[in-house]
């Protein structure tokens, strides 16, 4: 039995800080989520400190070392080496940075497009709503991976284009999510009161409706980070994302196929990196949803 939170410790704290502490406390009560949160922090730390961690910096991009090609994991090369003798450990560590950057940029861009559109559609209604939502429906009618492949192929293979492609494939989900919330907000008393006091429509949408609808979007976005990393890896695997010699996980798995029978470590470690990253982001998203939704909250 874990002991319950002493209420009086919260009395003196500012509301926002209190809310944050409560959230943290609730996350902490769910061990699995807490482990996932710590792992995410660890991943971020790894991504930031990559240049300090990697033992063979020169191997990351272009340095080759043909004498040591396809060596199994050892003390010098923790994850072994690849077909050009590059240290896989160093490359996987750098891959964290690339994957997180891509995922954050793609999700951020998708949010930047999706949230305002959804909020405007839901809060305005009428023709504006119809037009925005029908466009959204067009995008939603494609499977996101397929759409991303299509756009990436159209734009030409590069990591930036893969990121753009993912953002374009992902924004409609946020639009739909926000729009549903915004519609229910539109007839709420405080929105009407804001209009009654003379607040312009624009300010109502972004000052009143969006802040009230953002919680489920945060949950969705944190879960999507995992999915986006997977999609980015998939695009690179298919040759539509990162190009060699970028140390991108999907690309590494893709190249490793040729050596898979003799060098298991080559595909296992980048694959494991993808697996763990996607898993922890999903777990964090799940945990956040549980915490942010009072109905599933367990004190």
């Amino acid at each position: 039995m874990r002991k319950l939170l002493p209420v009086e410790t919260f009395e003196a704290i500012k509301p926002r800080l209190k809310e944050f502490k409560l959230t943290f406390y609730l996350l902490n009560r769910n061990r699995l989520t807490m482990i996932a949160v710590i792992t995410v922090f660890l991943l971020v730390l790894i991504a930031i400190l990559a240049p300090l961690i990697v033992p063979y910096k020169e191997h990351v991009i272009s340095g080759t070392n043909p004498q040591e090609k396809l060596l199994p994991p050892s003390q010098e090369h923790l994850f072994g080496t690849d077909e050009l003798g590059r240290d896989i450990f160093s490359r996987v560590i750098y891959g964290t940075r690339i994957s997180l950057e891509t995922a954050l940029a793609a999700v951020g861009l998708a949010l930047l497009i999706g949230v305002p559109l959804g909020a405007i559609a839901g809060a305005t209604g009428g023709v504006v709503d119809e037009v925005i939502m029908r466009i959204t429906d067009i995008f939603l009618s494609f499977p996101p991976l397929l759409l991303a492949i299509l756009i990436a192929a159209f734009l030409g293979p590069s990591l930036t284009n893969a990121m753009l492609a993912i953002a374009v494939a992902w924004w409609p989900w946020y639009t739909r999510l926000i729009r549903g919330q915004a519609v229910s907000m539109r007839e709420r008393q405080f929105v009407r009161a804001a209009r009654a006091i003379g607040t312009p429509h624009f300010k109502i949408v972004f000052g009143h409706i969006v802040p009230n609808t953002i919680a489920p979007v945060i949950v969705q976005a944190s879960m999507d980070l995992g999915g986006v990393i997977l999609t980015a890896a998939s695009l690179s695997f298919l040759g539509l994302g990162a190009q060699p010699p970028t140390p991108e996980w999907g690309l590494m798995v893709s190249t490793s196929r040729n050596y898979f029978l003799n060098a298991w470590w080559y595909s296992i470690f980048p694959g494991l990196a993808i697996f763990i990253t996607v898993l922890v982001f999903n777990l964090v998203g799940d945990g956040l949803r549980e915490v942010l939704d009072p109905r599933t909250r367990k004190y």
Partner: protein
Amino acid sequence: MTELLKIENLKVNFRTFEGVTNVLNLESLSVAKGESFGLVGESGAGKTTLAYTILKLLPIPPAFVESGVINFEGENLLKKSEGEMQKIRGKKVSMIFQDPMSTLNPVFTTGQQITRVLQHNQGLHKAQAKKRAVELMNLVKLPDPENILSKYPHELSGGQRQRIIIALAFSCGAQFLIADEPTRNLDVTIQAGVLQLIAELIRETNVTVLFIGNNLELVSLICDRVGILHRGQLVELGSIKEVAKHPAHPYTLTLLRAIPKEKREKIDLTQIALKAEERLAEKGCRYAGRCLKKEKICLEEEPALKHIGGTHYIACHL
């Protein structure tokens, strides 16, 4: 006396699944500058609809304004664009809503909400707005303003929230205030305090008020003149003395009889309990279905407002 608000031939309808229903049918109603006008009627009589129509906050669809003129300072509000209305809302006409629990945005502190309104409506700087917000808190007699301004709505009581809403309504110097049952959802002791506050503020600021309520006695504490609304129509109109002391319309009598006065007094609810028919009759008095005194003419002809002395009008054949 100059008329600040003049409503003529206003008809507001709702398009529903079963067809079009008329919810407001006002031939003529005017509120003079500096006057407090009370509007009383049961739930669903169209009181709030009128408030929303004046501010153009009606949800369209399903509602729509069939015809009519709402003149405010000689200008027809119904002809104004959304942009023009924004300049009127809050600054010239403001409103106190009936449910203090849901009128404030739950994700911002009350201070943020008040300062934002002040910054936008009056062009104040943040520091000025904060100072003004504290003044407003003192105006509505909330103790410890800084503390209250740093709180989220859910941390405050209903009475405190309603005072904040009143502060917001008075914040931007509106000359016309619509108070839509400001004491609803509050318990009786808090009601008295809030009502007293509104009465004081009205006196101090000399604002013109449209006070909406469903308790005639409560309304009589604040208003000079009162109109009784029944199913979208005015059935009685007069000074508070005339209507409260000598109610003439059967519906007004019923309304007054439904208010509990003394502890053990039995209240006769037989008449008010009569359910109004779902649909409006094609012709005749809208009250005829529940009226105990109805006669043949009531079912055939719609009564118009007629003068019965002083400033007292009723819409009844009898």
